[in-house]
């Protein structure tokens, strides 16, 4: 029962998010980039529902457009990190030996740096744009996925059903893909949903440092960063993108949890 409520709330939030992002591609109340200095820092009103920023741009329009940018960045980043992390982690955990030792040595070295620092270094090399941001954040989060996947795979590979697969005459690669990977999904699914949140925040942190998606194009991250000087005088500037990030995280986490339970035959009933 509780599970179904979670699914409903999570689903509604994520649908709202996607709906907003798609709508923004065709229509926003105002042009999100149009500067109107006569309407600077207006509080929320019937005309500007979420107020305006220091250049008189409509915050609602910017939040709507930013939804698209933030979601695309987070989604691609998480996808990159999980796909690469799964492959590398599985290889390390399943093959063991020198492959494992080398991969894990590099991995642990990378883990020793804070993710944001790693992303910063990559950004400087690749350049500050969307692709650079995705690559940088993706690379920064691969090591934690590798750690989790390897640990799970290590315990799964000792299970007798893996040995059974070998006795049947299946190749090692087949055993890994057919038996090891599906059973390693659950912890990765949990990690994926929480990682979605970290990436949204990391994107805003990078923007804050001037390395995110460059202005004037709005993302929730750079909006949040730009709102800092006005925190006391124009709170709506930080509340709007902040609330968006919070609600998105809530939605993704709720949906992720119910997805994980649904994917596991042991938890799904009917």
């Amino acid at each position, binding site marked *: 029962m509780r599970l179904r409520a979670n699914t409903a709330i999570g689903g509604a939030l994520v649908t709202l998010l996607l709906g907003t992002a798609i709508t923004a591609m065709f229509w926003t109340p105002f042009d999100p980039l149009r500067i109107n200095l006569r309407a600077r820092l207006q509080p929320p009103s019937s005309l500007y529902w979420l107020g305006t920023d220091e250049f008189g741009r409509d915050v609602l329009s910017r939040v709507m457009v930013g939804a698209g940018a933030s979601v695309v960045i987070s989604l691609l980043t998480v996808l990159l990190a999980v796909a690469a992390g799964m492959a590398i982690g599985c290889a390390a955990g399943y093959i063991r030996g020198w492959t494992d030792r080398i991969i894990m040595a590099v991995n642990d070295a990378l883990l020793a740096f804070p993710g944001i620092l790693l992303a910063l270094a990559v950004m400087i090399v690749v350049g500050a744009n969307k692709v650079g941001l995705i690559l940088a954040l993706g690379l920064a989060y691969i090591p934690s996925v590798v750690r989790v996947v390897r640990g799970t795979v290590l315990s799964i590979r000792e299970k007798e059903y893996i040995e059974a697969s070998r*006795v*049947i005459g299946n190749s090692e690669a087949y055993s890994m893909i057919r038996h090891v990977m599906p059973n390693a999904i659950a912890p990765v699914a949990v990690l994926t949903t929480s990682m979605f949140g970290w990436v949204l925040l990391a994107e805003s942190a990078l923007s804050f440092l001037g390395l995110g998606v460059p202005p004037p194009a709005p993302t929730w991250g750079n909006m949040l960063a730009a709102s800092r000087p006005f925190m006391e005088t124009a709170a709506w500037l930080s509340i709007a993108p902040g609330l968006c990030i919070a609600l998105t995280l809530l939605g993704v986490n709720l949906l992720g949890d119910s997805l994980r339970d649904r994917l596991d035959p042991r938890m799904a009933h009917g």
Partner: protein
Amino acid sequence: MTLLAVDNLRIEAASGGTAVVDDVSFAIERGEFLAVVGESGSGKTAAARAVLGLLPPGLRKVGGRIVLDGVDLATAASRRMRALRGPTVGMVFQEPMVSLNPAISVGAQMAEGLRLHERIGKSEIKRRCLDMLARVQIRDPDRTYDAYPHEFSGGMRQRIMLASVMLLKPKLLIADEPTTALDTLTQREVLDLMVGLARDHGTSVMLITHNLGLVSRYAQRALVLRQGRMVESGTSRQILAAPREAYTRQLVEALPRRGAATGRRQSGDPLVSVRGLKVAFAGRQRLFRRDAGVSAVNGVDLDIGAGETVAVVGGSGSGKTTLGRAMLRLIPTSGGEIRFRGKDVTTTADREFRLASQLVFQDPYSSLDPRMRLGEIVAEPLRHVPELTVGERDRRVEAMLEEVGLAGLARRWPHELSGGQRQRVAIARAIVRQPAFVVADEPVSALDMTIQAQVLKLFERLQAQYGFACLFISHDLAAVEQVADRVVVMQGGQIVEQGSRDDIFDRPQHDYTKALLAAAPVLDFAGTAVARVSG
């Protein structure tokens, strides 16, 4: 005088109110040995835990009275309860590997109880701990006192557990399947120690077990539980020799017994032949050197004829499991050769041998992929039979499932099945490709008694039908006696004796074989020697 009286005990699952223990009454006199017998789900562990006042979360006592040493537990506050645990009632658990805290030294764990319940000084505590360790025949009590649990084998840990419980001289000792995880010889040693200690201190024992052999050897009285209800209680002699209830009779009859000699030993070339087989595990890699390795199998010669069942018996660490795995080429050998139908398959990856050999595992819970349906699991070996069409394959899977008594369950998940049903799936998976050679590694030791009998019977029937040869690895001599044509006894990685089943069981030559046979728990009442009747 009655030490423990349990009247009309009823325990329910907190959610849903289904009874786990229903209307169970029994009593234990001072110094008496009571066995509580039952299969999984019989409520025997829940009943014992209620006596300790330590029901696991999710279960609660809803009715009945437990009077322990004159104290009604229902009225005892939790403080009074804690004072009872230890000096009045102690417990030894089933899993020696997890019942000792790995982060605390053995001595500190033993001393905990004494510090809590008795007002004696540090040196006195240590002296009593060391005495007790010596009493349970731990070789070097002083070193053991400072050592940590992981340094000991299961049997040693169970002795330590026993020592720390008996240190407080409890009036009642509850032992929940204390030796189920141990091999036959160790089981005998630990239980003999337990009975000796109990006698010395006048302790009553409540032994929870599924092994009727242990009941017959040690218990004065027995109580049979089934699905939370009492089936029968009485002296153990009466229960085993002249069971009144149908279920008890079924339990006694489920004990494996020797079938007629089959004479399946075929002349001609052996199917699988092993010469001088060695398996060594490399030692741990240190910074600059490697520790000395351990040789688990050390020069084994063995022939298995087509359709023959050869049983390998031995205690834990005898190398029997390693031998089975090595013969299937699942672990690398370090010497000797394996021949299959005359062909050397020791080092080359021989496809014919791989496809013709199979393995049945001990643990039905971890041998099935939890994310595959039964139909998929049984169909998987047929991937490597390319000439089968999809329709034919499905028909064969369906037929195989029917064969093992699981018709129509192809869409089910493993977690929806009982242990016995899972083991049937594992057997179906092994047989579906009609192998010539099957290694069965303790295939029934994780199952309940009556289920064991069913699975063994199924296995025998399938073997008669499909005619595969079998290497049956087991420490359970009774099961071996039922299915084996020949028996191989292993100790320390070597074969110490081999011969026909009747020769080994009736005329054992080697001392180790004799010790194993003597330690095997069997019903030994005159005239009712169910398990050991020859022929």
